[in-house]
């Protein structure tokens, strides 16, 4: 047998240490960050009122993304699946509330049942009913999707479930667009409650139609406040659920190690279904609020917010609930500020560039656990 051992081994001694050159990369990133900072500071001093206005709209967008991102991050945390159909569940939430409001007047039911009820209570109870209905329908839908399209593939390669997720997404979009389902139209959305806007200028005043707020006023609306409050509440209650309740702990246990969870007597399938249901309920809630804020709906409505929310979840560190939340707020601001100071058509590009740069600095997102290599 011929022997190759005679050849001299490769000697890397001539190679210098490249660690000293780390400043080049860091400097590059720093320069980028500085540039962004300068632009932002300049814009702020240029017109602080406009800056605040833009930041508020970014906040509103960010909180909607947060609601969707929570579902993405939960599902990913537990089954490691990028659930591309999540955005379409979000769309379904908007449509369910649309039908409830426009066709069945569900938001008016307290007035019909209890005629004496004060209008404000009617609105609150009615709207809550609509929202709850959307959440329940979305949850059921997500559980069905999970059973039909994902569960049979749990032991198959991960990519198979990803492809079915894409399939489910297409199906929901185009099945929904059939004439006897939702129809392909852009449908003006009838809100269960009216939107009221205020402006801040020497105190807080109501905006009345036909009267422009004075120059330099900052406007905000009740829907923005509702979105922010609901989003924070949901985030907190999810934290409570996951941290404190039996099922939440079981979810964390299942996410960490399915087999060990089974050994504890945890029905992993049920936990996964519950996770899908909760995530979808949040998406449904997000869908209703989104439709109220941006009241024109069609069956492709979920594609972009779904994608952005997913990016937000990745940015924050997928699998992490606070991460999804923070990531969503960053995405909202990035989009809004790009639209305000660079160019609206570039906002997707900027949002994704930010994502890529963040990932290069923190490869598993802001709150992500570093990946461990087992040898």
């Amino acid at each position, binding site marked *: 047998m011929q022997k190759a051992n005679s050849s001299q081994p490769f000697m890397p001694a001539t190679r210098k240490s490249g660690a000293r050159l780390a400043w080049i990369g860091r400097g590059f990133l720093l320069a980028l960050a500085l540039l962004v900072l300068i632009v932002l500071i300049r814009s702020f001093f240029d017109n602080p009122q406009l800056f605040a206005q833009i930041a508020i709209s970014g906040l509103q967008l960010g909180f909607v993304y947060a609601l969707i991102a929570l579902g993405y991050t939960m599902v990913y945390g537990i089954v490691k699946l990028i659930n591309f159909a999540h955005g379409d569940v979000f769309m379904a939430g908007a449509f369910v509330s649309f039908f409830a409001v426009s066709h069945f007047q569900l938001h008016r039911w307290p007035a019909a049942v209890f005629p004496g009820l004060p209008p404000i209570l009617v609105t609150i109870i009615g709207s809550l009913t609509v929202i709850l209905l959307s959440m329940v329908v979305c949850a059921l839908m997500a559980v069905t999707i999970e059973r039909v399209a994902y569960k049979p593939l749990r032991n198959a390669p991960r990519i198979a479930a990803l492809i079915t997720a894409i399939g489910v997404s297409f199906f929901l979009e185009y099945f929904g667009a059939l004439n006897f389902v939702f129809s392909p139209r852009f449908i003006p959305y009838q809100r269960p409650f009216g939107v009221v806007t205020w402006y801040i200028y020497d105190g807080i005043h109501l905006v009345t139609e036909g009267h422009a707020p004075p120059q330099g006023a900052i406007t905000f609306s009740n829907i923005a406040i509702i979105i922010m409050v609901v989003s924070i509440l949901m985030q907190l209650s999810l934290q409570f659920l996951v941290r404190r309740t039996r099922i939440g702990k079981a979810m*964390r246990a299942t996410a960490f190690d399915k087999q060990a969870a*089974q050994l504890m007597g945890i*029905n*992993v399938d049920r936990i996964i279904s519950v996770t899908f249901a909760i995530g979808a309920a949040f998406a449904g809630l997000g869908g209703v609020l989104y439709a109220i804020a941006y009241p024109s709906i069609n069956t492709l409505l979920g594609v972009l917010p779904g994608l952005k929310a997913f990016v937000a979840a990745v940015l924050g560190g997928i699998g992490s609930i606070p991460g999804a939340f923070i990531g969503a707020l960053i995405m909202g601001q990035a989009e809004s500020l790009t639209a305000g100071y660079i160019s609206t058509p570039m906002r997707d590009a900027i949002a994704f560039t930010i994502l890529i740069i963040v990932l290069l600095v923190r490869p598993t997102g802001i709150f992500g656990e570093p990946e461990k290599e087992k040898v």
Partner: protein
Amino acid sequence: MLLEVNDLNVFYGAIHALQGVSFSLEEGEIVTLIGANGAGKSTTLRTISGLLRSRSGHIRFRGQDISTVAAEQIVRLGISQVPEGRKIFAPLTVQENLEMGAYTRRNPAEIQASMQRVFASFPRLKERINQLGGTLSGGEQQMLAMGRALMSRPKLLLLDEPSMGLSPILTEEIFRIIKEINSQGTTILLVEQNALMALSVAQRAYVLETGSVVLQGSAAEVRDNPQVRNAYLGVG
């Protein structure tokens, strides 16, 4: 007969991992399975606890065939497994880990009582009750894994390599606790690399080799078998 395994055949894809394994446990016993890596010891435990499905053969637990019962149901029937590598839920605290062990039980007062019993056996766990499972040392993790398994009040405890990665002193400690648990009425099926240690606590032993039982007998008989001494007790 608490557990009866009869002609068990298990496959990993094309690999015939268990080739007609049969053995049994009486109530109150400690029985050990010994054998080399890949002989099928862990596979046997995983099949009993329902993580793997057998292609043929029976597993009877208190007379009931459990070979097709789902893993989470088997826990409810009274079989609890301490998996190889401990499989602690790293992001959960010690207390939460123990609560997960009692997932099949509903009564908070009883769970609390069980937890106190576990703390009595493993005082170290009580000290670290709010620490994350992943931050415990190897020995503490093993204790947590055992405590967690006990939280479901099992009739039968399956222990997979409890001494793995532990110092001799800790190993001795763990084995002392194994005996103690057993003396409180829990039957134990022990898989252990440290054959000497295992044979010192067990009443009976089975030797597995490439997926089949090649020797069985009382612990003393097995320990004195020259071939076993040669192969597994190393120093001989």
